[in-house]
């Protein structure tokens, strides 16, 4: 074991891991965090805490993570390279680790243009791959990025994101390889609707043996409405929603669409379970956390193992 991470333990045990996420509130109310995280208790192995998701200011991910940690749950500290330079990021990593956070996810973050501070400076002192490198170096070598020794280095279980669907597709496996090379321990993918394309990607991943070097958690987002399906299809960059999904959502009356969305999510999980190299699932039920237990239940992923 590289770390104390509960997620690492589950994955190492060979069981299918389950993570989900919790967006911190846009205010200083800790209850909001606790409420959301509470819904996931007993259903997931770790809870991702987003970092100024979609470039909107929220409670910092490490603070929310600590609140979750205090609930006895396991947060995954998300960190984007957009908002802080390498000094701030390393400081936050040490601080979070000192309070018991041992799992993190390295991202570049959405461009400020999409958020509520489009005028903000776009830091990107380092990029997400370099962030992985940095955290791994802190853990493995006990050194800061600048090269100096760390007194009691943080041991983070390091995750990265992968989008099997973005363009250019031919680069997608390579880019995963690059993140693996940088030292990523686990991968959470973009939400998957185009299962065929995902399987094609996984085939590439397996060909290069990457699935043996990194745990891949398949991203699942249940669709609430046909409108949401259409929106994701047309408006969200790097998202691949096949027409069949949109049509399927449209084919049922509005009041039954949430149910249909959950059904699709469950079917997807069941199919992906069989894909070699898939080590678990990352359920991103955006503002719909209450449905996560139901999905997991129906997918046969409950109860969670106790590592």
């Amino acid at each position, binding site marked *: 074991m590289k770390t104390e991470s509960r997620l690492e333990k589950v994955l190492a045990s060979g069981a299918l891991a389950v993570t989900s996420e919790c967006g911190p509130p846009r205010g200083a109310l800790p209850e909001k965090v606790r409420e959301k995280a509470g819904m996931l208790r007993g259903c997931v192995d770790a809870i991702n805490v987003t970092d100024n998701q979609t470039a909107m200011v929220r409670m910092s991910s490490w603070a929310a993570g600590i609140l979750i940690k205090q609930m006895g749950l396991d947060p995954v500290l998300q960190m984007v390279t957009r908002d802080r330079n390498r000094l701030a990021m390393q400081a936050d990593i040490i601080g979070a680790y000192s309070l018991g956070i041992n799992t993190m996810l390295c991202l570049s973050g959405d461009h400020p243009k999409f958020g509520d501070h489009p005028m903000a400076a776009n830091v990107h002192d380092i*990029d997400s791959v370099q962030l992985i490198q940095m955290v791994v170096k802190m853990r493995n070598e006990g050194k800061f990025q600048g090269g100096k020794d760390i007194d009691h280095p943080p041991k983070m279980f390091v995750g990265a994101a992968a989008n099997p669907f973005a363009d250019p597709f031919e680069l997608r496996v390579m880019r995963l390889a690059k993140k693996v090379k940088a030292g990523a321990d686990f991968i959470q993918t973009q939400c998957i609707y185009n299962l065929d394309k995902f399987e094609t990607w996984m085939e590439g991943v397996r060909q290069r043996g990457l699935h043996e070097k990194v745990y891949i958690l398949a991203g699942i987002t249940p669709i609430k409405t046909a409108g949401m399906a259409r929106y994701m299809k047309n408006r969200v960059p790097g998202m691949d929603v096949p027409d069949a999904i949109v049509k399927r959502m449209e084919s049922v009356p509005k009041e039954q669409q949430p149910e249909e969305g959950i059904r699709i999510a469950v079917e997807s999980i069941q199919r992906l379970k069989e894909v070699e190299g898939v080590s678990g699932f990352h359920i991103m039920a955006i503002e719909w956390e209450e449905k996560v237990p139901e999905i997991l239940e129906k997918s046969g992923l409950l109860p969670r193992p106790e590592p």
Partner: protein
Amino acid sequence: MITAVRKPMEEIIACVSPYDRILLVGCNECVSVCSAGGRKEVALLSSALQMHFLKQGKTIEIREMTLERQCDPEYVEELVNYMDGADAVLSMACGCGVQTIAARFREKPVFPAVNTTFMGASERQGVWSERCQGCGDCVLGITGGICPIARCSKRLLNGPCGGSTKGKCEIDANVDCAWQLIWDRLKALGLEKRIEDVIEAKDWRTSRDGGPRKIVREDLAS
């Protein structure tokens, strides 16, 4: 070249309105090439200002001058004879030119009439695009001749991110994804493998982050 665009008239007017005699100085270098601050734009701005103030019932005196290069003190020196006749200087050069004038004529207020925008190249007539951020440590040799720092919205050195769509950047469908371009170029060069090399975190000291930079050529400097 350094590109620039004229500031909104409102802002320029606000700057110069306390003054009666204005020396409007253009530059025949980069800003002329990008049609922002050469003789033509100087004449147009002069006319527009004149009209604005005339409309207010105020006559201002605008002297138009366009220097060969406003960022060289020798050329700026050409203004010396006209400074007494001016209450303020309005410069249509890039920030370098404005500062050169300000440094030479300490007692005269100097205002920029353009926003210096970026270092760019001409795409076609009337279209200029950012190409370089002057980071001081060029990576073009390993990125297939396309600068990810200037041209990737996130400055990723290990792109592309998940937002790359059909060769375009997620922030704007009119912006090329720099990493798609890099990838295409590497493929064309038969250097696909290179995309998997992790480019290490950049040393930004050579860039603006290292503080204002200066080049001193020992062999030339006097």
